[in-house]
């Protein structure tokens, strides 16, 4: 496949995520989505580039900011909207909501709302993959804030010690809720990971899915051939507020200029022609998914006590 084809495929995937989240913004005031949403708008390229570098059998372990990775890994859009609506047909039967999307059938292994808590899952899953000789890579995605948690250190150490087939992908948007990294971290994420003997790659242009894809493809191939874990740090930018569907540049905790600069380079913001080419088609898909969610039944009372233990 040509570079141009790849570019278009990834652009389409990224645009699809953005339009889904823009639809969520539009729907949110109706209170039909009754759970907190953490939008990835601005960060789509990371999910799209990363998942494109994975094989279908590889596994992704996500976070509450999970729409982008769910879709990029191939999660069903109808099941996602139904989940946001709290419907029985949702990917979690309505029990999950936006923060706990999962699609095990395509290797999206769930998302946790406790920061950093799925990182060891990816490591453990890689341990199982090796044990079961699955030729499978696990990818943990997490934010910059997650690297402050003790379990991050524990996970890196174990993964490196046993040279497990896991990619540690940090979406570094420079913020944990409203706190800048300087208020939280004494270490550089990449340098720190090197301290474990972990291979490291940094992608400064996290808006550029092609760049992300290239870095990840290299990382995944190293991991797959048994070189041990790789940590990839992608610089990125979240355009919306931490949780919810608004913008909050006015709150003063970060700079609108930096965001504007980022947007000037973000293909989804610049390439009007490609956006125009696919918007209608994607909008129709979204319409269908939303209609599916609307038409779907609520979970039955039985569900309340089902699947507990």
């Amino acid at each position: 496949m040509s570079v141009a084809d790849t570019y278009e495929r990834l652009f389409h995937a990224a645009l699809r995520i953005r339009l889904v989240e823009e639809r969520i913004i539009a729907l949110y005031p109706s209170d039909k989505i009754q759970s907190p949403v953490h939008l990835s708008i601005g960060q789509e390229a990371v999910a799209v580039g990363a998942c494109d570098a994975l094989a279908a059998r590889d596994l992704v372990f996500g976070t509450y900011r999970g729409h982008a990775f769910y879709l990029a890994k191939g999660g069903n859009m109808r099941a996602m909207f139904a989940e946001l609506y709290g419907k029985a047909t949702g990917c979690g039967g309505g029990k999950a909501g936006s923060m706990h999307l999962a699609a095990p059938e395509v290797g999206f292994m769930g998302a946790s709302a406790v920061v950093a808590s799925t990182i060891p899952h990816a490591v453990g899953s890689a341990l199982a993959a090796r044990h079961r000789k699955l030729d499978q890579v696990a990818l943990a995605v997490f934010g910059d804030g997650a690297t402050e948690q003790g379990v991050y250190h524990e996970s890196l150490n174990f993964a490196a010690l046993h040279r497990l087939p896991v990619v540690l992908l940090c979406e570094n948007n420079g913020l944990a809720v409203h706190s800048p990294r300087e208020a939280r971290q004494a270490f550089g994420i990449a340098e720190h990971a090197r301290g474990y003997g972990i291979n490291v790659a940094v992608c400064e242009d996290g808006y550029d899915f092609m760049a992300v894809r290239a870095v990840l493809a290299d990382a995944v191939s190293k991991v797959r051939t048994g070189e041990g874990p790789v940590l990839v740090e992608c610089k990125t930018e979240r355009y919306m507020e931490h949780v919810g569907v608004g913008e909050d540049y006015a709150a003063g905790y970060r700079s609108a200029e930096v965001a504007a600069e980022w947007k000037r380079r973000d293909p989804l913001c610049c390439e009007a022609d490609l956006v125009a080419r696919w918007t209608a088609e994607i909008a129709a898909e979204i319409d269908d998914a939303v209609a599916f969610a609307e038409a779907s039944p609520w979970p039955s009372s039985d569900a309340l006590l089902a699947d507990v233990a």
Partner: protein
Amino acid sequence: MGVAHKLNDDLGAVCTYRDALHRSMHDAMTRDPNVVILGQGVDDHKGTFGSTLGLAEEFGAGRVMDTPLAEEGMTGIAVGAALNGLYPIQTHIRVDFALLAMNQIVNLAAKYRYMFGGRFEVPMLVRMIIGRSWGQGAQHSQSLQSMFAHVPGLLVLAPASADAILQTYPWIIEHHRGPVISLEHRLLYDVNFRVGAEAAATGDTPLGARVVRRGGAATVVATSIMVLEALRAADHLAQHAGIEIEVIDLNCVSHPDTRVIMESVERTGRLLVADTSWKAYGVCAEICRIVCERMPMALTAPVVTLGMAPAPCPTAKVLEDEFYPNLRRLTQELATLVLGREGRDVPLPDDASMADVYKRFKGPF
């Protein structure tokens, strides 16, 4: 004393739970330069749901410190600070995250004084917010008071009103020399309370239970937001069935006020426990133990218990509405407890969603 005084000044004034929190934070910082607040985002424009807003500006970043995401480490850091003369107030915007700090809370903070034969003290307050509201799901809505209350060495509170905060927080920060865990309920933050209207706790400290409504037909022991529900249910039953229910706000979960509970249960013979958490190994169980060890023969009917359904919290609103015990169920259970089968005929409160009511709720105490 000073506190009671102050409350009298405010008697009748309306104040939200959030305002009460903010005021107690502000007053503690003003009174003692060694009081510091440590928590994620305590200095941001949201200010821990408003409860720490503006404090960083007023008292400086050295006293109102944003922290890394590191619950275990920051709790240990707070313990170390307490050992060396500070009074740390730590915040968790969800109780759930405090599970990461269980080791420091249970193995260290709770035991430090005893383990060394009384040679150390760890005075500190850990504020944990119960995140319940729509769609918070399994990991952002738990109400884990029982896990903490099981552990000797911890004082565990579940303040149910602005008064409970204004009475207990200043007292604890000034007088209690050990670690305190306080579970604040997110849904109470916006509720207006009339200050000074609540019956004060009996006993020497403001930690005791509060009889917030008198009645002889049955005793309700409730915690946190369930106190509000119990009061609404009691009012409803008084109006529609002429039944007078006694409602006790437990307030301190780790050191339940057995005297107040037993006095009431022995009088009414009927007990309902309404807690915000799971019933098994929870407040519902502990209150039953209190009665069973003392005078189970005083009970004329089985105890009714209300808590979350025995499951993680589902996200979908329709399931969530069944997951949490609501006003209607509480009213129904109480009516049946008092009237038996005839209780089923008592008209129940209408459909208005609980959360809606809370937002407009003006507390009767």
